[in-house]
């Protein structure tokens, strides 16, 4: 018979306000195997922990039930208390969630108390079936993988490499940098975006511990924290980077010159062999196989003729490698919503002078297609009246996305400022739903834009039409005055929503983690574990986790790097002991568990067993404890009931069910 101690927490008034904790303790004392029950104001505090430890010793308890907040909150802490301060195995513990799932969702003690008693009875029943579990040591591979080479990935890579650990950046485009080098100036300080981001890119390229794989994607991830086996496909670049010096001769001679430049958002052209922009990293060109005449039609070959080092290789193929990493950071960033598909009322992309915010960034940029002069794409004239529309796609659950993209209020103000700065006498109208400027010096920046003369009009634009004289007639409503507003604009800038990058869903499945409803990666806890995921060894940085601006992106990247460094510093980590276990004597060797396991953690092996005092050799299932993640799927597939899940064993769950059903 076990001796269970039940510890009921008041959590101040958080629990005690709607649950009669003393009554719960009284009821617990009547439950089978309960040797002690008591309450404490804050069970998680140092004093509460001491109370638990003292009572365990005094009453010679061999199992513990803590009725408190969610086990997702403090189960780890209480396990640690048992491990460090008592002789009890830390897995002889159950947590009854009487806060998040009881006191916080019920109005009074009449309802809360009986429910809490039920939850404690279930935990007590399960605790009785708990067994001692033991962890073992898993070695840690001291290398990190960063997926996505935007400013988030770059910052995380630099921080980890500076701490002395090798890093690989996998970037699917031809250069690292992401969106930041495309931006002109950054709010609120208006420092030049390329001037602060491209040095970081070069630093990555020069860093002895950083390896950059561009045009690359992660195809497969196997293994677990400390030991991820990652398969990376590096697409053919048709240029041997060991020979290429980056002289750029090929680019000047390539006859395919009319390809829209992605970097300049389609507002200029590039060649088929190209570097997207001069400071791109790696600082070597790539051949765009879809547009290269040699690769599509088999004739041309100019670049191979002009290359002084013979680096061009039209026979180049994809390289697929598999390597082991201890930790992975997801820094895959964002994309902008395709407004042309969704907003026919804004012309759906038919009007050349209705452009996106990112296009505007390129237009004002000195290295952009107009050398920094704000000129209309349609006729190259300077617009005198500009309309900015915020929240295009954002906060629009019907057409776009329900959430706020967070950076647009600020860069919208930045665009208004830049326009008025560059176009003397220019008029700027900003149509907005709200102005959200939380952040250091952010509201001051917005106020300044207002003082400079930007006209902010609260309301959405309902329609944009183009008049024969080229003017864009913007029709909207000023919801503050209730008046209909019509503005004849020369150019319209749409500040569009940030959405998850293409392939995020597939990547989530590959690395085995979750996406939120909006499609960004989910953090382990929105407040307390913002850069971790629920998958051990997998971290988040930047807009991959949700829309944010550069300061927040960089801060989060640093935080993710700190977590990675913390992991890579360790020689080994403790395994999760809550894994499947096969009872050889019951196993029939059918292999049902092998087929169902999502992690290929179960294999059939020949084992010599002692049965009825005879030695027999049979095929039985064996679980690799390093690979098993403890989902328990195999236990349900197993007909003879040979496979069970430690920590959530069949008997324990059955007893828990019974405790509730029969109470």
């Amino acid at each position, binding site marked *: 018979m076990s001796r269970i101690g039940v510890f009921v927490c008041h959590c101040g008034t958080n629990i005690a306000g709607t649950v009669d904790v003393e009554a719960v303790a009284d009821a617990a004392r009547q439950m089978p195997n309960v040797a002690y029950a008591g309450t404490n104001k804050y069970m998680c505090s140092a004093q509460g922990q001491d109370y638990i430890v003292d009572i365990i010793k005094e009453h010679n308890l061999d199992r513990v039930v803590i009725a408190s907040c*969610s*086990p*997702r*909150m403090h189960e780890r802490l209480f396990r640690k208390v048992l491990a460090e301060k008592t002789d009890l195995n830390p897995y002889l513990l159950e947590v009854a*969630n009487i*806060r*998040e*799932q*009881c006191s*916080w*969702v*019920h*109005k009074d003690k009449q*309802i*809360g108390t*009986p*429910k809490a008693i*039920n*939850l404690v009875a*279930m935990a007590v029943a399960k605790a009785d079936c708990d067994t001692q579990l033991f962890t073992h040591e898993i070695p840690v591979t001291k290398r990190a993988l960063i997926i996505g080479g935007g400013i988030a990935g770059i910052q995380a890579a630099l921080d980890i490499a500076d701490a002395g650990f090798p890093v690989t950046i996998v970037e699917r485009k031809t250069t690292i940098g992401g969106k930041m080098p495309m931006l002109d100036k950054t709010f609120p300080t208006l420092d030049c975006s390329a001037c602060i981001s491209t040095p970081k890119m070069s630093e990555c390229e020069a860093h002895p511990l950083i390896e950059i794989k561009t045009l690359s994607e992660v195809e497969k991830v196997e293994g677990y924290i400390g030991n991820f086996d990652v398969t990376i496909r590096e697409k053919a670049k048709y240029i041997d980077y060991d020979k290429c010096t980056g002289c750029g001769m090929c680019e000047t001679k390539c006859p395919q010159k009319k390809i829209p430049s992605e970097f300049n958002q389609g507002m200029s052209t590039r060649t088929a062999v190209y570097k997207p922009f001069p400071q791109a990293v790696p600082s070597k060109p790539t051949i765009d196989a879809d547009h290269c005449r040699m690769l599509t039609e088999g004739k041309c070959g100019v670049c191979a003729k002009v290359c002084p080092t013979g680096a061009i290789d039209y026979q180049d193929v994809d390289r697929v490698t598999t390597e082991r990493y201890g930790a992975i950071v997801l820094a895959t960033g964002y994309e902008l919503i395709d407004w042309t598909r969704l907003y026919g009322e804004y012309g759906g992309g038919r009007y050349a002078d209705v452009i996106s915010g990112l296009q505007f960034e390129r237009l004002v940029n000195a290295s952009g297609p107009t050398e920094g002069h704000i000129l209309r794409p349609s006729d190259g004239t300077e617009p005198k009246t500009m309309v900015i529309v915020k929240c295009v796609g954002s906060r629009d659950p019907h057409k776009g996305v329900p959430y706020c993209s967070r950076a647009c209020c600020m860069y919208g103000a930045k665009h208004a400022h830049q326009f008025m700065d560059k176009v003397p006498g220019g008029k700027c109208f900003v149509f907005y739903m709200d102005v959200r400027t939380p952040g250091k010096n952010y509201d001051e920046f917005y106020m300044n834009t207002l003082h400079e003369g930007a006209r902010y009009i609260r309301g959405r634009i309902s329609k944009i039409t183009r008049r024969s004289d080229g003017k864009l007639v913007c029709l909207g409503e000023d919801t503050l005055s209730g008046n209909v507003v019509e503005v004849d604009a020369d150019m319209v800038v749409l500040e569009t929503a940030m959405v998850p990058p293409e392939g995020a869903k597939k990547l*989530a*499945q590959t690395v*085995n*983690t*979750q*996406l*939120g*409803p909006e499609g960004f990666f*989910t953090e382990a806890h929105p407040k307390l574990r913002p850069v971790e995921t*629920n*998958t051990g060894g997998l971290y988040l940085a930047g807009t991959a986790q949700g829309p944010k601006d550069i300061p927040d992106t960089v801060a989060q990247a640093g935080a993710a790097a700190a977590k990675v460094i913390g992991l890579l510093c360790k020689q080994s980590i403790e395994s999760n002991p*809550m894994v499947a276990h096969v009872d050889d004597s019951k196993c029939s060797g059918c292999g049902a568990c092998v*087929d*169902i*396991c*999502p*992690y290929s953690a179960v294999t059939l092996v020949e084992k010599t067993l002692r049965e009825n005092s005879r030695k027999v050799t049979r095929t039985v299932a064996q679980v690799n404890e390093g690979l098993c*993640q*403890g*989902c*328990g*799927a195999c*236990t*349900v*597939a197993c*007909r*003879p009931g040979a496979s069970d*899940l430690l920590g*959530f064993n*069949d008997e324990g*769950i*059955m007893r*828990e*069910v*019974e405790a*509730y*059903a*029969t*109470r």
Partner: protein
Amino acid sequence: MPRDNEQTGEFTPKILAFCCNWCTYAGADLAGLNRMNYPADVKVLRVPCSGRVNPQYVLKALQSGCDGVLVCGCHPGDCHYSTGNYYAKRRMMIFKRMVEFAGLSPERFQIRWISGSEAGKFRDTVVEVSEQIRALGPMENDAPSRAAIDAVAGTVASPEADEELFAAAKEAI
């Protein structure tokens, strides 16, 4: 525990919800964090994954006093334990068809997908299922459902018969 509310004489059902640790359990915690209000009829039993829920548990619950059972997990495709658990989830769906085929009121055993961020959906599900079971009344008065569970429990106890039933149910879908 009294089955009826002492003051009103109203029937308070006993509903057991198996919730996966990563999604629905987290969603339920979030509902608490947001101080949402819902009936106390549903008690949550935490499992690592909805794939851990053995049909035996469901039968046990309905045989020994519960009026309804909910199995909740992550949306298919978003499972913390990767796509492999499609199979486990499919098995649970087949099992549901099987007990319904045997005569269980469908409301008494439901499978719902609720993610860790869907606190509102968790609350709504609890409210909805609790209302449905209240309308149905206690399991002990529902003879066809009871007979269905007993019949299925009888077959599940023998692996061969279970296998056959599973095959038949799969066939039926």
